[in-house]
């Protein structure tokens, strides 16, 4: 029986604990609020675990360094916030195209631009899905507590290895700086990279998720962000090569949505109103469930731990139960468009938005909105 240690720590620290448990041995980052504690704990803990920490010259270099580390055979991650996440989009697209497992933590703050740098926001939901150019699919996890900062960081590494793709941990300032008891098991389930056998040379196709070699092991692997064939050779004109590659890259994620998707539901088949939430905003919903019951209103919710790819089933189930679905977000409405698309008129979709100063949506504000939309 493995021991579980309990530590009273903040979300960012829990993320580092999770990363190291998952086997992360390389971190490259650039200072930015509110992700700094990840770098600072990594700088201390990673060398002690036999890993390498380096602070790079910018976020562009940071994301490229973790890509290099991954090809050198090591699990790697970086952490940033909105402005840095924007700079990393080039490298995220490259990691997607080259099927490079790595983890990018985006601790969301209030944008656009430098906005209110120390305050919480949830404005990167669409950037995490569509931030880089071209066709792609992303895996984006959304923790709502320090415990989940630990667990979903582990999961992010495992998904990155399983699907050979970059995975984004989309946290927010509140979750990153919240402190609570975090249970850290001595051992966690870890997915290891599938390596090719000597003589194999199909590292970019031939199967849905091909094995990945390390550089320096004699495979002579050509890695490129340009369109390439199954062996990695650049083909910048042939339409079939491009279609085959990009369709597979997107498909390997979207076809496995039901395996990747992770969510929490509460009375979705027996409620008066439905809520779809993620990250720090879910705490508003939890509180609202209690005060709504006092008013005789039953709330059902889907709380997304995986934002992308999104499993439609629980959302459709909820929308079929109720007349109204509310999407509370600390932005001016991002996920609500996806919820509207999924529910397709089964229920009316309403936004409840708040931006500025890092203020949370209060349970009372949510209850007020609920009463408004269900006419009570």
């Amino acid at each position: 029986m493995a021991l579980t240690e309990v530590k009273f720590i903040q979300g960012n620290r829990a993320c580092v604990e999770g990363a190291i448990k998952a086997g992360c041995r390389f971190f490259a980052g650039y200072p930015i609020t509110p992700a700094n504690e990840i770098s600072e704990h990594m700088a201390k803990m990673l060398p002690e675990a036999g890993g390498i920490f380096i602070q790079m010259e910018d976020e562009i270099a940071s994301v490229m360094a973790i890509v290099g580390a991954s090809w050198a055979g090591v699990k790697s991650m970086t952490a940033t916030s909105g402005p840095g996440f924007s700079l990393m989009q080039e490298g995220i697209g490259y990691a997607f195209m080259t099927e490079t497992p790595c983890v990018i933590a985006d601790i969301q703050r209030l944008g656009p631009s430098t906005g209110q740098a120390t305050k919480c926001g949830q404005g990167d939901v669409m950037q995490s899905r569509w931030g880089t150019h071209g066709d792609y699919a992303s895996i984006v996890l959304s923790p709502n507590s320090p415990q989940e900062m630990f667990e979903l960081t582990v999961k992010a590494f495992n998904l990155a290895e399983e699907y050979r793709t970059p995975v984004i941990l989309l946290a927010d300032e509140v979750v990153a700086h919240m402190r609570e008891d975090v249970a850290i098991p001595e051992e966690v389930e870890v997915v290891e990279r599938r390596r090719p056998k000597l003589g194999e040379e199909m590292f970019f196709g031939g199967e849905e998720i091909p094995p990945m070699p390390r550089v320096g092991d004699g495979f002579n692997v050509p890695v490129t962000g340009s369109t390439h064939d199954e062996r990695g050779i650049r083909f910048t004109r042939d339409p079939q090569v491009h279609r085959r590659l990009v369709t597979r890259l997107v498909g390997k994620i979207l076809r496995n949505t039901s395996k990747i998707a992770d969510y929490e539901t509460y009375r979705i088949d027996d409620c008066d109103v439905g809520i779809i939430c993620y990250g720090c905003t879910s705490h508003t919903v939890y509180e609202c469930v209690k005060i709504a019951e006092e008013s005789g209103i039953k709330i059902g919710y889907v709380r997304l731990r995986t934002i992308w790819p999104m499993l439609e089933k629980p959302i459709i189930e909820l929308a079929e139960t109720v007349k109204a679905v509310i999407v509370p977000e600390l932005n001016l409405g991002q996920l609500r468009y996806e919820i509207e698309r999924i529910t397709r008129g089964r229920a009316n979709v309403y936004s409840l938005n708040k931006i500025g100063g890092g203020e949370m949506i209060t349970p009372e504000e949510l209850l007020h909105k609920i009463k408004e939309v269900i006419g009570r």
Partner: protein
Amino acid sequence: MREFSVKNYLRSGLKLPFCPGCGAYTIIDCFLKAVFNLGYNDLRKFVFCSGIGCSAWIPSPYFNADSIHTPHGRAIPVATAVKLIRPELNVVVFGGDGDIAGIGGNHLIHAARRNVDITVIMVNNMVYGMTGGQVAPTTPLGYKTTTTPKGCFEYPIDAVKLVSVLGASYAARWTTAHKKELIKAFEEAIESKGFSFVEVISQCPTNFGRRINLRGSAEMLKWFKENSVSLEEAEKLGWDKVEGKFVVGVFARKRRPTLAENMRRAASVG
């Protein structure tokens, strides 16, 4: 008896993509000759990183080796990480002047400052060749390009001087008209511990030469040869006297602790 052939180092079944008269052919030849001279019969101990541009295609995918062909300008941070994790490998970056000194300039500065043990080969053809010959940070003052139709109105960057000042372990500049010196420079760069940098002034007859009335590689090589000045001579004459010339030679050759060595030292502090 070992015999040198570029074929031993190139991926079979692929045809090099460069224009007739391109300096890349000379550079490939000289680089692989240096590799041969150092005793390597294949490229298994090498990892090549490159960005975007014609010169980035020198290793990728034509060298029969591991190569990581990155977005524009981003080869150096990839190479930095690879070297830190796999110190037993020779990590070599190939890139053009736009890739290395333009969009990747910040990475170049910090790699030299860190003294990370990689080799960066900057092929300087003085324009953005792949995209048609636009002005580059290396275009000499007054020269015509597609985006400076009346002549370049900026001063060019001297990347060799820059990395030397930042503490590079080895830094040299030669032209494609200096094959012997180039081979020697590549050998020294691969062998040196720490950040090593070789700038190769190279001809792009297609997208630079023809716009400056040098109609072929032979004329461009003649231009390089006749306008090259040794570093010693430049220092004797004074740098203001050699403006517009190609100052060639070894600009830095020193041993100081590398990034990995300093990292290990820091980690051992109690």
